[in-house]
């Protein structure tokens, strides 16, 4: 151990630490810029992604198999429950189809080509999750070649789960909404109550202990009740309008008692993700 404190070694250690810290600072600073990561890094990530596909495939297959078994065990109860819903859904579907057709026609007459709600869905597999307690990130199997760009919203089958933070050619990184990093820019969302009036706001945080999304600093007097639906509002950015986020769990006063804070039960399960959808505008 005495050798460690030799002058030359100490200098080397300090230089290595400075280089390491410099690299980290630069990549943190560059991370939030619009431009995608540098080409060399993209190339490295694409190669790593290609190798990862080979290793992730059997592991994900194993997960699929175990999910199938547990699905099979619950089939009977689920079937009973779903049968009841199917009848209602058929009617709702027909309604929706007529409304969509009408909407399309009206839009054509008004010459509105790009509205807030229009997007195309790109489906991707989840390759891995970052093995770190500080980052809730996924790597998904589609990248710039599939039209994915930075900051696009990502959904699972049931609802919003996060946004794209880094795009390579054939894979990209997704930051989950449960991420607490200070630099994460948040979603614009709106709550619609039973009477049809809406409250706009942004996602301000995520309560890990209860698994609830927080929407803070709400000063609107509109009455919001438990169970009201929350969707993205489409304001200010690349997120389209009308992506399902979840339902209101409770409304409470914030810490200072001036504004209220709405807590939202997310529709998606953030710990069981195999296939995700990116909303490309």
């Amino acid at each position, binding site marked *: 151990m005495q050798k460690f404190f030799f002058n030359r070694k100490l200098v080397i250690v300090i230089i290595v630490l400075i280089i390491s810290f410099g690299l980290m600072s630069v990549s943190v600073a560059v*991370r939030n810029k619009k431009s995608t990561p540098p080409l060399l890094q993209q190339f490295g990530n694409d190669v790593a992604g290609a190798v990862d596909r080979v290793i992730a495939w059997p592991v994900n297959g194993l997960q699929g198999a175990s999910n199938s078994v547990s699905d099979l065990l619950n089939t009977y109860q689920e079937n009973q429950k779903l049968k009841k819903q199917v009848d209602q859904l058929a009617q709702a579907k027909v309604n929706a189809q007529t409304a969509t057709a009408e909407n399309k026609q009206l839009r054509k007459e008004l010459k509105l080509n790009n509205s807030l709600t229009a997007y195309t869905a790109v489906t991707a597999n989840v390759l891995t999750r970052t093995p770190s307690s500080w980052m809730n990130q996924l790597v998904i199997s589609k990248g710039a070649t599939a039209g994915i760009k930075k900051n696009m919203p990502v959904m699972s089958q049931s609802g919003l789960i996060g946004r794209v933070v880094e795009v390579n050619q054939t894979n990209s990184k997704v930051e989950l909404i449960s991420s607490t990093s200070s630099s994460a820019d948040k979603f614009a969302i709106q709550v619609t109550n039973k009477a049809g009036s809406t409250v706009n706001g942004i996602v301000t945080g995520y309560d890990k202990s209860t698994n609830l999304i927080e929407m803070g600093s709400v000063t609107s007097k509109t009455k919001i009740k438990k169970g009201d639906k929350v969707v993205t509002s489409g304001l200010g950015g690349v997120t389209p309008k009308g992506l399902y986020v979840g339902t209101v769990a409770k409304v409470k006063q914030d810490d200072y008692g001036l504004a209220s804070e709405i807590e939202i039960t997310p529709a998606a399960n953030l710990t069981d993700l195999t296939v995700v959808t990116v909303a490309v505008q």
Partner: protein
Amino acid sequence: MRVSRLRIIFPVGLFLALFLDGSLSNVFAAHLFKYPYSSVLHLVLLWIIFAVFLDDRNDLSIGIWSAFAGLVFDWYYTGILGVYMVALPLVVYLSRQVKPWLDLNFLTMLMVYIINLTIVEAFVYIWYLIGKVMTSNLADFAVYTLGPTIAVNLALFVILYYPVRQLYLKVS
């Protein structure tokens, strides 16, 4: 001939461990990252420690390979360079320093592994904290991250120790 086989097996296993870390984290996310605990898989570190202590001839360039694996980790998983890239070779260096003083057996390796896990996790924690990548206090880190991480990885160590040792005895 005997040397060359280990020279292939080591890097292949290293990258297998690297990608398995991520895949298994995703598959078992519900168990590993159950609030408030978050346990981080460190198969890469496990593989490196095995290589440092079980390779008697010291002719694997573990330091360089671990730096490379750290670089891929930073690029591919976190997007923040220079953290694991330095943490992993640091651990290799420290382990090599203590190796001559240790009577190598299951228990001493277990101890060294715990210390190395702590070093890596603490290094990453401090670096991310200074770089403002995240915010967390020391008590939460120790109780909710470091504790469960060590528990999970020790279990993996105990399971994998004899198979990997057999592998090294057979190959070298």
